[in-house]
C-alpha cells in the first residue's frame, strides 16, 4: 500500500465527506459517490475505500470489487490529465487508427501508461456516443471530435 502523507490524507478524507454529504450513504448512491471522489482526486485511493467500508458497513473488498469494475473509476493514481481515446469500430473505420498513432507519437507513451512527468495518462475506451463526429477522444472532461492527426499537437497544447 502506498503510504500517504498527512496532507493528502486530509484531502482524501474531505473528498469522501463531501460525497457522503451530497448523496447520503444509501446503497444506491455508492456508485455516484465513487464517481464524485474519483473526479475530485483523479482516482480512488485505498484510504477512501477504507473510509467508505466503515460508512457503508461493508467489507473493503466489496467496495473495491465495485470500484474496480467500472471503466470510469480508477484504483491506481493517474496523470494530471487523462486522455480516453475511442477505439470502437465507427471511429476506427473513419481514421481512428491514424489519430491514435499520432497521440502515441506526441505523448511518447503506450496505452495504459502515464508519462514520466506525471502529466498524461493515455487510456482507450469503448464508444463515447459521438461517432458521427469521429474519430473522437476526451481529455479530462473535454470532448474532441472530427480530430485529424495534425490537430493532436494543438489540442494537447491547451493543457498545462
Amino acid at each position, binding site marked *: 500500500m502506498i503510504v500517504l502523507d498527512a496532507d493528502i490524507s486530509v484531502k482524501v478524507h474531505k473528498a469522501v465527506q463531501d460525497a457522503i454529504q451530497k448523496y447520503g450513504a444509501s446503497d444506491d448512491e455508492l456508485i455516484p459517490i465513487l464517481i464524485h471522489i474519483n473526479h475530485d482526486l483523479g482516482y480512488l485511493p485505498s484510504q477512501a475505500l477504507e473510509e467508505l467500508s466503515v460508512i457503508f458497513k461493508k467489507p473493503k473488498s466489496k467496495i473495491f470489487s465495485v470500484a474496480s469494475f467500472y471503466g470510469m473509476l480508477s484504483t491506481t493514481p493517474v496523470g494530471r490529465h487523462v486522455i480516453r481515446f475511442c477505439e470502437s469500430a465507427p471511429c476506427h473505420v473513419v481514421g481512428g487508427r491514424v489519430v491514435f498513432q499520432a497521440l502515441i507519437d506526441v505523448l511518447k507513451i503506450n496505452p495504459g501508461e502515464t508519462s514520466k512527468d506525471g502529466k498524461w495518462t493515455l487510456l482507450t475506451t469503448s464508444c463515447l456516443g*459521438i461517432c458521427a*463526429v469521429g474519430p473522437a477522444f476526451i481529455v479530462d472532461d473535454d*470532448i474532441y*471530435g*472530427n480530430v485529424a492527426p495534425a490537430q493532436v499537437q494543438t489540442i494537447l497544447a491547451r493543457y498545462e
Partner: protein
Amino acid sequence: MSTVKTLEDLKRIREEAIEKRKAKAISGEVQVIVGMGTCGIAAGARDAMKAILDVIEINNLSGIIVTQTGCIGLCEKEPIVQVVLGEQSKVTYGKVTPEVAIKIMKEHVDGGKPVQSHVITLT
C-alpha cells in the same frame, strides 16, 4: 409559472408561450440559436458560441437573444447555428467555425444579409 393541475393550466402556459413568441417577433428581436448537443460541442460549438458572445459584448449590441438547442441529427454539419431575424424565417448554418460565426454576426445579424456560403437546408 404556477403549478399545473388541469388541462386548462397547460393550455394557459402554451398560450403565454405563443404570446411571448409573437411579441418577440414583432419587436424585431434577433435570435441566434446554437446547437449544443455533445456532437456539436465536440465539433466546436462552444468556440462558435464564444465568438458570438464576444461580438455582442465588444460591439455592445442589444436586442439579440442567444439560446441553445439540442442536436438535430445532422452531425456531419456540426457546429450548427440558426438565426431568426424578427418575423423572418429561420436560416440554418453548418460547419460554423469561430471565423464563420463572426461573419454571420456582422453580415446577417447586423447587416441583414445571410452568409450564403454556409447556409444549409434541413432535409
